[in-house]
């Protein structure tokens, strides 16, 4: 069963009507083809309309849609059985919220790293809701260095409500782990592509988010804080999340407009959750062409440009 968000109600309704019509046709033998076609046309129009006028808070909700593909699904599908997951930070633990390993993308080896959410209650806990501990960031860095050693491009798939704010995470230096990644990712001498595929929350996202190209899928968000927490801190109430979502300028459009990301990846009509296969295929194409594009530069040039890009971010007044 597909899940629908509240504002997806019109889509749900049309989908159900189509299904009902088809069911009745099976029973009665009446030809409903024309009626179905009409409804499907209406569905497309409705979906287009809905997605054109999406507000930031709705984007946030879509980014968390339970039917959305998670990192592993993208990676496994794109690499067609050639992905081998690699484990461990070589110090303390294997973090299940952070996955990584090489896979072949049309024959070319790529290091994929990503935050992984779980698809059901049990897996959500196993994956700690996609909230990595320090060992997750350290595993990611280890794997990035491995990729660098063999001159393989790195692709990170970002999807996290934040770095885990637990007791042991603090003990093992969550801050240090993220900081170290920012520093070391800046000077990785291979192409690095970072893609927000769901939630891009703050330092937890940025910890695997330093790349030559930082891209956001259409229905994702990326900011320094979630709208809910922002509301609670700035408005001292949980009721301003919609306002906060707008104020934070956290959508792909806004982030691109502000020059804080390099591009937007279009999703299938109705969102990635509506058509996994197409979302995967789009992502694969983008990754391949982006790698090809980046490979036109030497690795040293990439590092230099990467550093310069991030150094140029910020708006201030020379008073």
């Amino acid at each position, binding site marked *: 069963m597909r899940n629908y968000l509240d504002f997806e109600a019109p889509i749900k309704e049309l989908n159900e009507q189509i299904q009902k019509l088809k069911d009745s046709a099976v029973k009665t033998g009446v030809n409903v083809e024309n009626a179905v076609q009409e409804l499907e046309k209406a569905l497309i129009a409705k979906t287009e309309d809905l997605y054109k006028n999406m507000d930031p808070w709705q984007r946030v909700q879509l980014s968390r849609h339970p039917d959305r593909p998670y990192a592993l699904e993208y990676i496994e599908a794109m690499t067609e059985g050639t992905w081998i997951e690699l484990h461990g930070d070589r110090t303390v633990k294997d973090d299940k919220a952070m996955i990584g390993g090489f896979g072949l993308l049309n024959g070319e080896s790529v290091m994929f790293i990503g935050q992984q959410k779980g698809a059901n209650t049990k897996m959500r806990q196993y994956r700690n809701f996609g909230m990595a501990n320090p060992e997750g960031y350290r595993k990611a860095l280890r794997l990035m260095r491995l990729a660098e050693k063999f001159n393989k491009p790195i692709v990170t798939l970002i999807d996290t409500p934040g770095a885990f704010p637990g007791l042991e995470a603090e003990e093992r230096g969550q801050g240090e782990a993220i900081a170290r990644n920012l520093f070391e990712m800046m000077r990785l001498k291979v192409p690095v592509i970072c893609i927000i595929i769901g939630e891009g929350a703050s330092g937890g996202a940025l910890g695997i988010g330093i790349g030559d190209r930082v891209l956001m899928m259409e229905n994702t968000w990326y900011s320094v804080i979630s709208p809910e927490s922002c509301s609670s801190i700035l408005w001292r109430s949980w009721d301003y999340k919609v306002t906060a979502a707008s104020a934070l300028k956290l959508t792909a459009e806004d982030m691109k407009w502000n020059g804080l990301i390099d591009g937007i990846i279009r999703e299938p009509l109705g969102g990635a959750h509506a058509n996994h296969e197409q979302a995967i295929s789009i992502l694969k194409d983008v990754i391949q062409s982006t790698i090809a594009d980046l490979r036109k530069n030497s690795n040293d040039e990439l590092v230099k440009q990467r*550093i310069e890009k991030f150094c140029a971010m910020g708006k201030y007044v020379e008073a």
Partner: protein
Amino acid sequence: MSWFKRMKKGITTQNQEKKEIPEGLWYQCPECKHVMTSDQHAENDWLCEKCDYHEKITSLNYFSILFDENQFSEVAAHLISGDPLEFTDTKAYKDRIKTTINKSGLKDALRVGFGNIEGEKAVVACMDFGFIGGSMGSVVGEKFARGVDKAIEENCPFICISKSGGARMMEAGFSLMQMAKTSAKLTQLADHQLPYVSFLTDPTTGGVTASFAMLGDINIAEPKALIGFAGPRVVKETIGKDLPEGFQSSEFVLEHGFLDYIVNRKELKQKLALSLKQMKAKS
């Protein structure tokens, strides 16, 4: 006892020039309740003379402690905050900035000075908690960047004194990217083999901890400072029970391997100068 409170406020947010405090005012230590004159307190580097409690102080206070004869020139002193997102919560960000500048006498949450420490050139960046909780926005990032550039230009070490609640939410994505920007600048400093000392003071949390504050060639801290990524309240909510005694204190963070040493403010200058000497690259 309202004069105690006033006094304390003066010290923590407005006491930029110790001379400005009228004589005869008093300071009461919040730890041990010991009372001393504010002059004595300032003479004692704003430590309690009885229990060594390290009062929060300003960037100018730190500069007066560190720079030889309190001589320094400011780097990028003129930068002030824009309002890149036209952000409004209960108040417009633009107005908040204006009010804060007027009230605090500060231009933003970071001040960068260039001068000598025991006869050797150094760039010192220092956060001011009095400016929107020492939060990091575009101005902090850019001043940090120019401080690093100055250190590279002068071929001298770079020191950053952190004191921050984290990112500045009103700059959202821009604020987040200052973590990346400051880290990027530190790779450039490293390429020049110049030492970077991160000095963490009470409190250092959030995005500052998760970027430049933890990236020192050596990380040092004042005693009993709060240092963490997630704030203690959030951690407590996450684990659903009380935090252990001393959690996220300097001493705790040292024990867990993230600090090189803890230094009493009275010994700061001498020890820092020695550390800098020890790290000066041999060509």
